[in-house]
């Protein structure tokens, strides 16, 4: 299970930060301190159900990651529970936010709900920047999301070697045979229905088109980010949450087929952006691997040691067999003793045509 975000070490950030709670309380202070002061006034605890993490990320699922990042940026105290009751997951309802009797499901709606609860990461933006946010989010959803879905769920090598085992390991037994397949079909469906219109008929052409679009989108994002810390100056906003949510899984998860990941890694400012957010807001996950990541590493190490031990046992056995078998007379290898004449002719030979 992931550590709850409420137990994360705080991130020191400039005092003119975006925590609405701080300005209301009228003082600087640590993240934890203000939350404590606010805690007495809070109406209801907010609980988020989402997919778990791996490879140094708090969550491997794009939409869950968007919500987690936004909650960090806006200071919303979320209780994160990693779900394994996944009939909701198959219908695309993950992540889900529950608060008292409100159940909110898609990331856009969840973010709206959080904003209404006064956890707003955008209140310092101008109207034009707010409009830009909407536009860039639309760009992400139209151009980048199909390719991300394809990389995770449709590309056979990736799906069978990485995505399916990962999700299947987090779903109880009989469902683990069905649900990943269903999610994969849903992703393919979405890609084909939105992008597979004439004149693109063949899946290969659709794939080529969506990867072209995704690379262009990554380039545009990189141009827009430039050298600044976040997309709108020094304070992370909704757009940063969305970009992080879509890019981080692409950046961190190890896939066999990596063309989009390679392209992303060449855009160093986007990689720096993801790493910054991970190290600052999800410090536990980044600095020392999340416990899930650590478990994976330990398990791999164990398997490796077992393999090595087996190999060394085998080699010992072979050695023993050799020693016990009847000894053959050692073969005499012809020794090369070159006479001077031979040496000369040998040395001249390479030069002859």
């Amino acid at each position: 299970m992931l550590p709850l975000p409420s137990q994360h070490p705080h991130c020191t950030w400039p005092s003119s930060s975006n925590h609405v709670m701080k300005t209301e309380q009228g003082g600087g202070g640590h993240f934890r301190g203000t939350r404590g002061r606010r805690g007495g006034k809070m109406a209801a605890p907010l609980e988020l159900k989402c997919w778990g993490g791996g490879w140094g990320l708090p969550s491997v699922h794009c939409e869950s990651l968007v919500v987690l990042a936004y909650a960090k940026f806006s200071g919303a105290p979320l209780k994160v529970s990693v779900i394994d009751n996944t009939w909701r997951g198959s219908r695309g309802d993950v992540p889900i936010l529950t608060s008292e009797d409100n159940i909110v499901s898609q990331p856009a709606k969840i973010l709206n709900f959080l904003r209404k609860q006064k956890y707003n990461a955008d209140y310092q933006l101008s109207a034009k920047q707010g409009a830009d946010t909407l536009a860039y989010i639309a760009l992400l959803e139209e151009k980048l999301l199909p390719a991300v879905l394809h990389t995770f769920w449709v590309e056979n090598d990736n799906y069978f070697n990485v995505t399916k085992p990962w999700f299947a390991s987090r779903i109880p037994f009989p469902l683990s045979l069905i649900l990943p397949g269903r999610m994969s079909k849903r992703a393919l469906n979405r890609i084909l229905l939105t992008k597979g219109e004439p004149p693109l008929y063949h899946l290969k052409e659709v794939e080529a088109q969506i990867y072209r679009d995704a690379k262009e989108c990554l380039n545009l994002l990189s141009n827009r980010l430039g050298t600044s810390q976040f997309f709108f100056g020094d304070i992370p906003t909704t757009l940063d949450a969305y970009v992080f949510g879509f890019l981080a899984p692409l950046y961190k998860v190890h896939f066999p087929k990596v063309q989009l990941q390679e392209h992303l890694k060449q855009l160093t400012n986007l990689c720096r952006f993801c790493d910054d957010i991970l190290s600052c807001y999800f410090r536990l996950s980044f600095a020392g691997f999340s416990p899930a990541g650590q478990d994976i590493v330990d398990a791999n190490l164990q398997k490796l040691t077992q393999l090595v031990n087996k190999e060394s046992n085998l080699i010992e056995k072979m050695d023993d067999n050799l020693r016990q078998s009847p000894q053959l007379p050692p073969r005499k290898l012809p020794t090369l003793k070159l006479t001077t004449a031979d040496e000369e002719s040998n040395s001249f030979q390479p030069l002859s045509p």
Partner: protein
Amino acid sequence: MSLVAEAFASQVAGKVPFIHVGNQVVSELGPIVQFVKAKGHSLSDGLDEVQKAEMKAYMELVNNMLLTAELYLQWCDEATVGEITHSRYGYPYPWPLNHILAYQKQWEVKRKMKAIGWGNKTLDQVLEDVDQCCQALSQRLGTQPYFFNKQPTELDALVFGHLFTILTTQLINDELSEKVKNYSNLLAFCRRIEQNYFEDKERVPLRLA
């Protein structure tokens, strides 16, 4: 979409709009823009990289929100479907083909809506999204004549196309056009383009009553 054009499109199995140059047919906005650019005419040459990124982002916003909302209103709102869309879509075909094709198209559109997460949206939520989109466009336009500098770009063309259609197409309920009419700078923008570029070919005057 004119019926002749639809019939042509269904025969050529391409999409409207298209341009016919010599023996080449190029359809849809994106490829047409590329084609024209290859011939040496481009509207967005004067923009720097950041502005080009913004332009592309806003174009996606329009495609994502306005286009989907228009589709929703045409095909998923029962009143509109029954009164207008079915008969308009099936008009060129004989019975029973007109009904079959109309239902098939409706089923396809509903499938697409469900895939992108709009399946459970009510009409009010869709209108709210349109409002948000118009607000974003209005804020981006501000008091400028066009979205970028003083010259129109592809974004202006796209926005004009959608807004003009919304404002001039009569549907059962006018809520969609009412949402757009709330933003006076968008109205002025449409008027301006219509007057500057279309006034010799007056087809449907912009009724702003």
